[in-house]
């Protein structure tokens, strides 16, 4: 292991390391800790400039219920769910199939199609912005969660196809060969042999896509407006405009918006990191 395991170092150094760890972590998360603390302060504290002293009262329940009752935050959150969940399902369905096709079949243009997915995945969003907004308008889906989800499905399919294809490639080919000799139909090979083996890849991509889409802000502002269809990222931004200097509410809103991906990350950490670090190890 590198660096040298701390157990092999002197006792003094070990003690130093163990004290440095929590300090480093607090420093690293300081902005977030500050936000969490602010989200339970009273409006009085905020106007009095008491940001860092002891709170005069703890308004945890009041602040958090305030943002749900006095603002459309609840509806923003629900919109995020309505965009994110269908996108995850749609993207996985498309990319399982495309990844399978690109990994298993040799045909002319295989590499070309594969590179199209990879390259498209890297283009700046702005080059797509005007035509995608236009297309969405023409389909009558502007300002709807469907319009937003459809675009997300298409765009995420690029990255997910890359991931799925490489994953299937690492599976033993003999399985497929053997099934073919037995006369198993192609779609049955996909459904009964490959798909069950893809579970870890599906899990990894599901959490990753969930986080990406939940946190998307750009497309939310391009394709939606108003509380009936805007997801929470864009919603939080418009609320921030309304809550001028009401930092206790901004903080509470930020925490609520951040909660779902954070929860998913902590619950499914192994899959999340497996997805993110694809290719980081040879």
């Amino acid at each position, binding site marked *: *292991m*590198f*660096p040298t395991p701390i157990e092999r170092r002197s006792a003094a150094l070990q003690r130093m390391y*163990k004290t440095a760890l929590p300090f480093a972590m607090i420093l*690293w*998360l300081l*902005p*977030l800790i*500050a936000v969490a603390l*602010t989200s339970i302060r009273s409006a009085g504290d905020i106007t009095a*400039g008491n*940001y860092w002293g002891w709170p005069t009262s703890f308004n945890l329940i009041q602040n958090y219920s305030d943002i749900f009752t006095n603002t459309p935050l609840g509806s923003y959150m629900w919109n995020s769910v309505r965009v994110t969940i269908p996108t995850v399902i749609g993207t996985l369905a*498309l*990319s399982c*199939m*495309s990844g*399978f*096709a690109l990994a298993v*079949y040799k045909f002319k243009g295989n590499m070309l199609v594969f*590179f199209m*997915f*990879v390259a*498209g995945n*890297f*283009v*700046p*969003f*702005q*080059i*797509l*912005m*005007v*035509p*995608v907004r236009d*297309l969405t308008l023409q389909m009558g889906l502007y300002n709807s969660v469907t319009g937003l989800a459809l675009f997300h499905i*298409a*765009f995420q399919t*690029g990255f997910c196809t890359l991931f799925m294809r490489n994953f299937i490639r690492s599976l033993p080919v003999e399985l497929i060969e053997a099934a073919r000799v037995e006369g198993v*139909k*192609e779609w049955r090979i996909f459904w009964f042999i490959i798909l069950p083996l893809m579970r870890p890849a599906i899990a990894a991509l599901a959490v990753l896509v969930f*986080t990406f889409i939940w*946190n998307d*802000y750009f497309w939310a502002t*391009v394709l939606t407006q108003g509380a009936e269809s805007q997801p929470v990222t864009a919603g939080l*931004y418009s609320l*921030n405009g309304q809550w001028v200097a009401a*930092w206790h509410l901004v*903080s509470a809103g*930020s925490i609520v*918006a*951040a909660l779902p*991906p*954070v929860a998913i990350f*902590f619950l499914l950490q192994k899959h999340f990191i497996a997805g*993110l*670090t694809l*290719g*980081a*190890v*040879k």
Partner: protein
Amino acid sequence: MSASRASRFNQRSLAPVLFLAPAILFFLFYVIFPIFQSIQISLYDWDGLGPKTFVGMDNYVELMDDEAFYTSLKNNVIWLVLYMLAIPAGLFIALFLNQTVFGMRLYKSLFFFPFVISQVVVGLVFTWFYDPSYGLLNVILGWFGMGPIAILGDETWVTYGIIFAGLWPQTAYCMILYITGLNAVDPEQIEAGRLDNAKGWNMLWYIILPQLKPATFIAIVVTVIGALRSFDLVSIMTAGGPWGSSRVLAYYMYEKAFSEYGFRMGYGAAIAVVLLLIMMIYITFFLMKMYRDERGQ
């Protein structure tokens, strides 16, 4: 027998088409065609609703004389250069955390935390952190008798302030790449290095880093793309201000095409084309490496 063989052959050639069709259709209509449509729109004068007027290269000519375009371009370069700091910073934290003391898993997750939350939240958190009257930064500066300084209201500091906010999640991302990479470093080589008396820097430089190459490659790719995609933070923290000094190409394009500054789709598209050209350098580089790797297999 021959009939069934023919049907199997048909199935084998038809299957990839059917499996690929939905993904390709989606991708073509939402990603590939729009790229070319944008290039085409950049040759027109268009407000997004009315008729388009062909203007040839006029949008690009105008771009050459546009002060705001150069500011954005310059800021993009600053973003690209400074964002790269996330890579050594991520490596540093990964090395710091690559131990097996009690509770390490939790520490690693907490350090990774900033990457999981939305950039909107990161932007709001840092806007508040920089707040000239109450922000934590100025409270700390106050302890040393300095400040207050309004980072986001100052033309010289604003871009650096936003990049610093962006480095927070980006460093977390690079860290996790390196933590995974470090787990896979060959322990025998480390022991061999130790026998040869390689220590500290030498060990890191000659033995560890070469083995971390795949992690470094991915870290560079995602950091470059992250830097060029910088839109969220600029939009949330300053909306390009003060006086347009923190604009980047991605944001300037949006401003030109969609905001109260006028719905100039053609001009916006021209900015996007420039951004795409910059990105193409990296895309080509990435694809070429991938192609070599595929060939090597």
